[in-house]
């Protein structure tokens, strides 16, 4: 596989796996699904990593709940947005069993709580302090809360990847709705923030991390629709001081067929495990293709 940059990150991930098979957000901390999922994707297919990835898969499957949702970690009682990450992992591993079907079902049942008649009426009469399009169904961090860009983008990836194995009109509908929500919540500067582009008639700025994630979720939209956002993504990638943003934007650009410049080989590895995994995925020879959705469901 790739040179020092990629190998140093994969080596760091191998060295920091917990005894239970998962990864914490930082070395030595308790395992969480998020860093575990991205570490699994980064190590997928890497020489000598199969056993580590299989061990991690066993752990995250133990966090599945009867309703189909997935807990974000061993100590948390209820399922959250990380359910989307498990569905993506299942697609990557070719697992399409009943539990995964339940998780897909859970994602299809959950929608942002702001998408209701009352809020749509408020929005129609311009009574919200936020200029917000609440006409589309996206996904919240937690069931019962509002929809935001990151959980919506991650769920779009999960459902698009799962669509071939779990086809349904509802899945197609929710994917279209999710994409429309992302497009509708674009900030006036052309990118995305966490999902609230305006408050009290003040436009809020976009964030490069959210912009990268939004672009990942919008794979398969027409070139005309994403041309402007991709321009913004390239600009933000060049400007940002955030390593997390740079990783997500690089992944997004690669998934949209672009070839951003590879990082310097000697770049230091962050102690942030999720970041190290995302940087590995973003590398030209990294596994970013595992997040490819192949277009709309």
């Amino acid at each position: 596989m790739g040179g020092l940059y990629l190998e140093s990150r994969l080596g760091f991930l191998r060295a920091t796996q917990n005894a239970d098979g998962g990864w914490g957000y930082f070395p030595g901390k308790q395992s969480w699904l998020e860093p575990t999922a991205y570490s699994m994707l980064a190590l997928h297919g890497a020489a000598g990593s199969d056993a580590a990835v299989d061990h991690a898969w066993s752990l995250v499957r133990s966090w599945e709940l009867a309703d189909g949702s997935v807990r974000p970690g061993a100590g948390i009682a209820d399922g959250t947005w990380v359910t989307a990450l498990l569905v993506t992992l299942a697609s990557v591993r070719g697992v399409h069993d009943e539990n995964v079907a339940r998780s897909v079902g859970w994602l299809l049942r959950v929608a942002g709580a702001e998408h209701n008649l009352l809020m749509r009426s408020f929005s129609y009469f311009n009574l919200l302090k936020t200029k917000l399009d609440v006409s589309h169904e996206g996904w919240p961090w937690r069931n019962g809360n509002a929809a935001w860009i990151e959980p919506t983008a991650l769920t779009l990836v999960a459902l698009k990847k799962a669509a071939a194995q779990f086809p349904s009109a509802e899945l197609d509908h929710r994917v279209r709705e999710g994409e429309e929500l992302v497009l509708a919540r674009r900030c006036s500067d052309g990118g995305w923030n966490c999902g609230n582009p305006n408050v009290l008639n003040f436009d809020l700025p976009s964030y490069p991390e959210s912009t990268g994630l939004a672009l990942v979720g919008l794979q398969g939209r027409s070139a005309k629709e994403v041309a402007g956002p991709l321009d913004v993504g390239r600009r933000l990638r060049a400007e940002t001081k955030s390593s997390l943003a740079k990783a997500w934007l690089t992944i997004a650009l690669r998934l949209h067929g672009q070839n951003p410049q590879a990082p310097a080989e000697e770049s230091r590895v962050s102690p942030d495990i999720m970041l190290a995994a995302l940087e590995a995925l973003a590398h030209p020879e990294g596994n970013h293709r595992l997040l490819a959705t192949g277009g709309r469901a």
Partner: protein
Amino acid sequence: MNRRKFLTVSGAAVAGTYAGMKLEKPPQLPDGPAGDSAVAILRARSYSEDLVSRMLEGIQQCGLDVRGKRVLLKPNLVEFDSATVINTDAAVIAAAVEVFHKLGAAEVKIGEGPGHRRDTLDLADDARYRSTVPKFESIFTDLNRDDVSPVSNFAGESRFYFPHTVLAADLIVSLAKMKTHHWAGATLSMKNFFGVVPGSVYGWPKNKLHYLGIPESIVALNRQFRNTFAIVDGIVGMEGNGPIQGTPKPAGVLIMGRDLVAVDATCCRIMGIDPEKIDYLRLAADLGHVRAGRIEQRGETVAQVRTNFALIDAYKNLRLA
């Protein structure tokens, strides 16, 4: 529910659709707890002044004893924008680390869980925390991604998760920034506690809090964590469209106290905001003192340092007479 409250509720759509819907008319302001509260106002015209001496003076005036305690410093670290005043200044944090060590704390840590999903370590780097605070990386915890444990009966929730670093602290020091805020009116030492809620469980922003209600959540967090102290960075605050897009406003003060309600009420008066019109302070009035007559001002008086902060149109009604 009055019209402003209604709009705040609905305006919180993404920020929390039903948040304000459960708010009744603001309650009559309670008398507050027994006794008065000391709040110290210390002048500090720039970050290059001797902030350690100022803090030591203020802490002494407030009678805080930290000997043998595990102290967690909770700054307000929000955004990449080193050219503005969004974040608690690095010099204030470095001074606080030194001060609490000098005062005999057993341990001094720094923890923050920003409300937006940014790269926290790079954010701290950009805010000069890494370069200014000695051994920053070894004492800093990203509270969004710390290990967590549940507590019972938080804000009506049977189970709510908090970071181990927060739960293990004997004293949490809110190192807040003096800013206006487009949802709460002002963000000071009490609102700063939003950063102890882990994004790994509740997402970014901490939308669960918005659904519980922003004022209610501020109060619930401060009810949950009672061993606290506040040091508000008002050397240069933010006015206008805070907490992110406002403009710098030099106020030249550090405000300190053990009663965070009284500290925030004092900060409001310094900013030219009527604290009795701030919803979260009204709701918190059983935890501490809002009324000026119950706050013993140490150091400077409010009148000596009052510096009206510009308010956006939606909050013009908060202006203190």
